[in-house]
């Protein structure tokens, strides 16, 4: 009966040997290929270092003007532009300017990378059910596996710094845009597609002129979620040495400084809200033809 109450398990020694075997083979892999993989990521690293230096080194009124300008271009809405300017002024006033610029640098690179990889992947997934059934479990793993599990091998291969941080952020932030692009395109009304075919559209015309425009609400929901998740990963990225707002938050958590954690946390929230509102407004403007639209 004892058998029923203690799960029969592999045994300490075989399990330990299995784990050590996996570790040893990863160490060999890392030894053999680590340099090559690091060199592969070097251009991306140089770009990120240059971009971060650019944002931190630029005069702050110029940066605020640029952000306000981007907010206006995206949103065409005075309240949002004013909110953007006020948030950045507050961030600077409370001494968080450099950290915020560093975070903006890495998050914008991560976001663009994720969107650039995610939308094509989502489009491909929408074309093929087989691909969807292969990719979906991978996305599930990417979203739920605890970050340090894949960070340990990444740190062993690439060390601590911006590239592992970028990989950590992208692995977590990629799935929403992929899933929602896939969903959005699949949800496009079949009859509309048939009509487009009837009018003689090529595959490219169907994709670019019919499917993507109609899938835009879902795609923009995906962009929004990707941005939110990228910013949520800021603190985990700082646990492997990425500079930015995550570092003071980590200090605050480790030393129990409430105010420090609150200020930097709110700065992260402010960034998220600004990025989100601007991208949402941009998305809405792209779909303006649908509001009050009567066909076409």
């Amino acid at each position, binding site marked *: 009966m004892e058998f029923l109450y203690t799960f029969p398990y592999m045994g300490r020694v075989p399990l330990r040997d299995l*784990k*050590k075997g996996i570790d040893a083979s990863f160490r060999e892999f890392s030894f053999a290929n680590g340099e090559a993989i690091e060199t592969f990521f070097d251009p991306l690293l140089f770009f990120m270092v240059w971009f971060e230096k650019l944002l931190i080194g630029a005069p702050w009124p110029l940066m605020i003007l640029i952000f306000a300008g981007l907010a206006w271009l995206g949103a065409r809405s005075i309240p949002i532009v004013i909110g953007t300017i006020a948030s950045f002024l507050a961030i600077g006033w409370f001494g968080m300017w450099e950290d915020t610029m560093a975070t903006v640098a890495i998050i914008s690179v991560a976001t663009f990378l994720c969107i650039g990889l995610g939308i094509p992947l989502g489009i491909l997934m929408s074309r093929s059910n087989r691909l969807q059934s292969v990719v979906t479990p991978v996305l599930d793993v990417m979203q739920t596996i605890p970050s340090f599990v894949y960070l340990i091998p990444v740190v062993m291969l690439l*060390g601590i710094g911006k590239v592992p941080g970028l990989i950590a952020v992208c692995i977590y932030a990629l799935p929403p845009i992929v899933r929602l692009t896939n969903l959005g395109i699949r949800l496009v009304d079949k009859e509309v597609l048939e009509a487009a075919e009837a009018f003689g559209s090529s595959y490219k015309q169907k994709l670019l002129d019919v499917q993507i425009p109609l899938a835009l609400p879902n795609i923009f929901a995906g962009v929004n979620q990707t941005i939110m998740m990228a910013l949520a990963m800021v603190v985990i990225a700082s646990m492997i040495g990425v500079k930015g707002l995550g570092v003071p938050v980590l200090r605050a958590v480790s030393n129990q400084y409430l105010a420090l954690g609150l200020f930097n946390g709110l700065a992260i929230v402010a960034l998220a809200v600004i990025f989100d509102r601007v991208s949402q407004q941009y998305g809405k403007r792209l779909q303006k033809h649908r509001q009050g639209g009567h066909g076409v």
Partner: protein
Amino acid sequence: MNKFVKGIAVAGLATAMSQGAVAACGDVTIAEMNWASAEFMANVDKIILEEGYGCSVELIPGATLTTFASMDTKGVPDVAPELWTQAVEVPLKAAFAAGTLLSVNPKPIAGAGEGWVVPSYTMANNPELKTVLDIIERPDLFPSKEDPSKGAFVGCPAGWGCQQVNNNLFTAFDMEAKGWVLIDPGSAAGLDGAMAKAVQRGDDYFGYYWSPTAMMGKLNMQMVDFGVPFTEMEHWTNCITQAECADPKQSAWSASEINTIVTDSFVKNNDPKAVAYFTKRVFPAAEMGAMLVYMGDNQAGGEDAAIEFLMEYEDLWTQWVGVQAANLIKKSLN
């Protein structure tokens, strides 16, 4: 009827009194801090207290600064087996004076030390680098990945007492002007990962580490002589270990102070024999080192390592506990 009740009452009281003569050990919370030797010690203490003295032990995760703050303000956990006390010297002395915290063991680990380390091959390849003062003149030997024009010095993650010391020594030795950048590894995993990666590739590496640890042994790291003497204790305690240190002076690392700290409520409410155990238990450097290597090689957690220790080093730990407790513990291991 009255006589009967009286009789029962007397009998009950007598039983209670005889039980009271052996004060029960109640619930005990022990801090399990997030590095290997601390996990190992916490688990050894847990097994010995539970099996030998009948306590009910709960392990609470923590780190130097967080655990100390919790003990100081809330009196939880009851025991911190491996508290590196330098970083919290001032508030700790205040607590000692107030009687809320006590040190029951001024040296639970022999041969502990902190400092700045380089791989042995770096020392071998560059024999002219004898002290920290020599090394800091050569940032070109330790290029940072993100800015190869600067040398990389890897400090401590947040929450560790050494983070502030490293920041202040970095300033005191004027390293930024000499072309160094202080890298915050973010976490214990980041620190270990950075060092392991560098040594695996045969790169030169310069950063903080401490002993007793498996990493120092496995990666064959060497502590570097600072080349300057230790500054006065007063300056160390009031400036170098603190965040607001206006003018840190160059200094070697202080001798590491590790204490087993307990709260006064732990001493008052528990079996004095259990408290006395803490005063006696000292891990000599060789045995602690061997256990840490064991933990590394076998990927053993604190609990497995504690069991291995109790099975392998009976001669050592039976000196810390009474005969009765030793027998109970030996029985439980089988």
